[in-house]
């Protein structure tokens, strides 16, 4: 079979599985639609959370980002995993004990306020729509790059698939398709990584290859990489040009942003108890760590491979016959441009401009010691996509990687759709506008909202290709979640005295300040010299999170405390239900032990 046939085979096979799961998991009540009936096993939920969380950006872009940024890429590795510790220790078990359907649900009830609920809905919708545009774009790119299907049609196919399981099965359908998608994506990520690790370091496990010597040499892989890149005029791989405070702030913004992302939080509403939510967060991070600890190895190996195969290779133009020209170049002792390069050149992810006219490809950094100008510009997504071909792996691995990329994008899109549709049907329609609505009507509205959200996401994805700012606006999602949602949820659990006024002030300050800062520096023409404390827009959510916490505290202290019933509710979510029973009913009359 050719590479393309394998790709069709894997994409077709995985999509049939997703549709099969959708048909099997149809739901009949809002309880099942929003939280899968509170009945998901913690390990299963951990796996679904991992797929929910790992998006097209994690799967396709992250290793490439690390390959280019070296040590600077660590902000993504620590930021996107460390958030789970915050989630497990500070939020997930308590929100599960609260036992409702959505994040705005908690904000609205805890702060006994419809305004607070609506502001939380706005934050959740803003975060989710920004995020989903990137996923749909990823789906479109995968289809158009590999299967020759037009970008828009790729998005429409993706929409139809998501429509099936999100509208029919709600959270239940999404949960079980995400489990299948996790298996597909982790397999697709680790298989090429293992082969490449074997080739470069002789180690089977990429995480061990990462700290090992080059195969058959006495120098460590990272030291060799450092020497290679500095000789070409790049920054040393294990260093960065970011300031320490900026590294600190970006890592913080990504961690607290991760903990405050509604589509991650709602996954922990689906397990039976608070203690199940805790262990489920552990499983989720373990499944995520499988990919995240492999990624730095993939990044470093990819950088070595790219330099070895491309730098100083003799270019072959499109009007030459590739295999003949390559044989000629080899016969004269030269290095022909690799065939995977020619394949990927068509997608525009690689560009070569023969500046000095010698017919060879010079890959150089900004300060090359030999004074040669750079001629090759790779896109960061190329490293994961072309990895199997660079390592000369069989065609089926390439098909698998495409299916894995689509699984990563679709699973995240589905989780986001759930946040959008439940915010509209539950928080806006049922809890704010039409409190009389019955369960069956709400379920119909929820399905309708999910269908509308799929459509909106698809249109956003199609627009995103023309605007081309998706990668930039992702900074919005984390910054906003960290500065607007995290503080009110955290204070709502850990400070009984936190009240409505404080919560509204805190959310508004976080939302407005972060939005304005990012907007000004991304689209409003601000320059890095004007950065507040030298913090880039990616990290500003961390700084404004503290502002939002402080404002919330001050406003709450000078306004009346929350009603007693709300304070009792906070008591109840802090302590698991079994002990509450003992307090209120006094069923176990014997003296307390211990």
């Amino acid at each position, binding site marked *: 079979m050719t590479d393309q046939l394998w790709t069709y085979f894997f994409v077709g096979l995985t999509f049939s599985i997703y549709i099969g799961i959708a048909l099997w998991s149809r739901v009949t009540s809002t309880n099942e639609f929003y939280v899968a009936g509170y009945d998901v*096993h*913690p390990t299963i939920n951990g796996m679904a959370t991992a797929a929910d969380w790992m998006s097209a950006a994690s799967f396709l872009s992250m290793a490439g980002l*690390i390959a280019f940024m070296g*040590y600077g*890429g*660590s902000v993504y*590795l*620590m930021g996107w*995993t*460390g958030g*789970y*510790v915050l989630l*497990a*220790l*500070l939020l997930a078990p308590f929100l599960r004990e609260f036992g409702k359907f959505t994040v705005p649900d908690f904000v609205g009830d805890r702060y006994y306020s419809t305004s607070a609920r609506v502001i939380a809905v706005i934050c959740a919708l803003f975060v989710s729509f920004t995020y989903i545009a990137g996923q749909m774009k990823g789906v479109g790119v995968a289809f158009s790059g590999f299967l020759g299907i037009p970008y828009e049609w790729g998005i429409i196919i993706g929409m139809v698939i998501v429509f099936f399981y999100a509208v029919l099965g709600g959270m239940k359908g999404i949960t079980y398709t995400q489990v299948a998608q996790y298996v597909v994506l982790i397999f697709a990520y680790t298989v090429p990584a293992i082969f490449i690790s074997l080739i470069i370091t002789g180690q089977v496990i990429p*995480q061990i290859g*990462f*700290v*090992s010597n080059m195969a058959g040499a006495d120098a*460590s*892989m*990272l*030291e060799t990489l450092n020497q290679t890149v500095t000789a070409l005029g790049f920054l040393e791989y*294990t260093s960065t040009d970011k300031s*320490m405070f900026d*590294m*600190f702030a970006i*890592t*913080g913004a990504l*961690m607290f942003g991760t903990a405050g992302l509604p589509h991650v939080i709602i996954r922990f509403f689906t*397990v039976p*108890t608070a*203690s*199940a939510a*805790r*262990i*489920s*967060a*552990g499983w989720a*991070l*373990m499944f995520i*760590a499988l990919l*995240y*600890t492999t990624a*730095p190895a993939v990044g470093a190996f990819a950088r070595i491979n790219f330099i070895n195969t491309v730098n100083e290779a003799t270019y072959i133009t499109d009007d030459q016959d590739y295999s003949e020209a390559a044989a000629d170049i080899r016969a004269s002792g030269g290095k022909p441009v690799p065939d995977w390069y020619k394949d990927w050149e068509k997608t525009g992810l690689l560009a070569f401009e023969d500046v000095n006219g010698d017919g060879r490809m010079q890959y150089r950094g900004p300060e090359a010691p030999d004074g040669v100008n750079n001629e090759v510009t790779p896109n960061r997504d190329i490293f994961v996509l072309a990895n199997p071909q660079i390592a000369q792996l069989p065609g089926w691995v390439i098909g698998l990687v495409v299916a894995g990329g689509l699984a990563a994008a679709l699973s995240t899109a589905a989780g986001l759709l759930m946040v959008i549709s439940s915010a509209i049907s539950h928080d806006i329609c049922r809890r704010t506008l039409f409190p009389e609505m019955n369960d069956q009507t709400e379920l119909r509205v929820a399905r309708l909202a999910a269908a509308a959200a799929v459509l909106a996401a698809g249109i956003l994805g199609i627009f995103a290709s023309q605007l081309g700012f998706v990668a930039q606006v992702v900074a919005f999602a984390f910054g906003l979640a960290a500065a607007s949602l995290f503080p009110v949820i955290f204070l709502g659990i850990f400070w009984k005295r936190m009240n409505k006024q404080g919560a509204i002030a805190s959310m508004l300050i976080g939302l407005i300040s972060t939005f304005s800062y990012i907007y000004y520096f991304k689209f409003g023409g601000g320059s890095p010299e004007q950065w507040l404390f030298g913090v880039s827009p990616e990290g500003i959510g961390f700084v404004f999170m503290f502002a939002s916490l402080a404002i919330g505290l001050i406003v709450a202290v000078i306004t009346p405390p929350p009603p007693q019933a709300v304070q009792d509710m906070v*008591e109840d979510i*802090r*302590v*698991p239900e*079994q*002990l509450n029973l*003992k*307090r209120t009913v*006094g069923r*176990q*009359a014997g*003296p*307390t*032990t*211990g």
Partner: protein
Amino acid sequence: MAETDGGNSRQAYWRATIGLTCRLLLIWFIASFGAGILFRDFLDQFHIGGAPLGFWFAQNGAIYIFVSLIFYYCFAMARLERKHNIKRDHND
């Protein structure tokens, strides 16, 4: 009588939970912001295999510690709940 005992037990349980959470968050901070960023240059004089230690913490080590922290938290909370007579269901 039962109510007062319950109340005290609840307070003790919550205090213990907060204490555990603070200790674990301290480790979380040291492993990531500390080892990976603030003390990175100092740690880089040591090596784990072929990788400078601070760099390794930032790209791999912190993640292993995060995973262990959450599982330890589950274990410690289960112990705490037993101590305070909270029955756990066996779904996990």
